[in-house]
């Protein structure tokens, strides 16, 4: 457990630093999928294998591909110096991040977690499905949240199409007959 934890923690943190500090934006996206893979490994260690599968499918697969599409559509070739990719808030941002990280780590570290023990997670996928639908002892609010999430996804899909749609007549419309 300790070896796996150290490996996954170093992978996650190194990839997170890579996202922030790499000069090429493509490398940032690939580092990001590495960090997501590390998080998926943590989910396996925390008795949530179904969630790890979701993580690999949605984050490492779908979100990374969508972000790579976004990069492909929006990037001009530009000089890759740190002066051009870092905004003027370098040091204020650094101190804010150090402060937030130190505060959060301190708060969770001084807390007395002696009553906690690993292994309370539900390994079975059937149990996770019942939890998500709010049946069989799960809080019934989950049923409502499930419905709200489905409506939210539909709204997000429609909004993405509407926002990024090119209006007829703007720019080059290939295949649109006026």
């Amino acid at each position: 457990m300790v070896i796996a934890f150290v490996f996954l923690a170093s992978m996650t943190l190194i990839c997170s630093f890579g996202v922030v500090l790499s000069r090429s934006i493509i490398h940032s996206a690939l580092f990001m999928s590495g960090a997501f893979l590390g998080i998926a490994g943590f989910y396996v260690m925390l008795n949530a294998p179904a969630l790890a599968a979701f993580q690999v499918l949605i984050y490492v697969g779908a979100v990374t591909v969508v972000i790579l599409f976004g990069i492909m559509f929006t990037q001009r070739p530009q000089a890759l110096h740190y002066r051009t990719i870092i905004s003027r808030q370098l040091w204020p941002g650094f101190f804010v991040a150090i402060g937030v990280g130190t505060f959060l780590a301190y708060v969770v570290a001084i807390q007395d977690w002696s009553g906690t023990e690993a292994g309370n997670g539900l390994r079975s996928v059937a149990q996770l499905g019942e939890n998500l639908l709010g049946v069989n002892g799960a809080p019934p609010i989950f049923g409502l949240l499930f419905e709200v999430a489905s409506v939210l996804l539909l709204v997000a899909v429609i909004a993405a199409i509407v926002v990024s749609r090119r209006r007829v007549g703007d720019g080059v419309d290939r295949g649109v007959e006026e």
Partner: protein
Amino acid sequence: MPPQVQQFVDTLNAALPLEGYLVIGAIMFAIGAWGALIRRNAVVVFMCIELMINAVNLSLVAFADYLPDAGGFGVGYAVLVIAVAAAEVAVGLAIVLAVYRSRKTVNVDEVNLLKG
């Protein structure tokens, strides 16, 4: 097997305390916040926000596994968080595309139409 080696192997096989996962989540959240504050490219800012969401998800799942009364419900919340984050990425990248089409840039400090 000599007892020192046995003790070392036991240490390696022991379950980790909850603080380990929480501290990893906190550090990852801080790295994501740092990147979201200092990077100019809006797509990288999105990636850093995804890192922050994942850090919080890791804390949720750690609590769901470690707290005796949690009943594993944190995993259900984590699934909902993933769904909301996916929706956020879709809408956010659409906005970035729309901004790029009108301003020809995605650097967040050059899109300053609302600046007073």
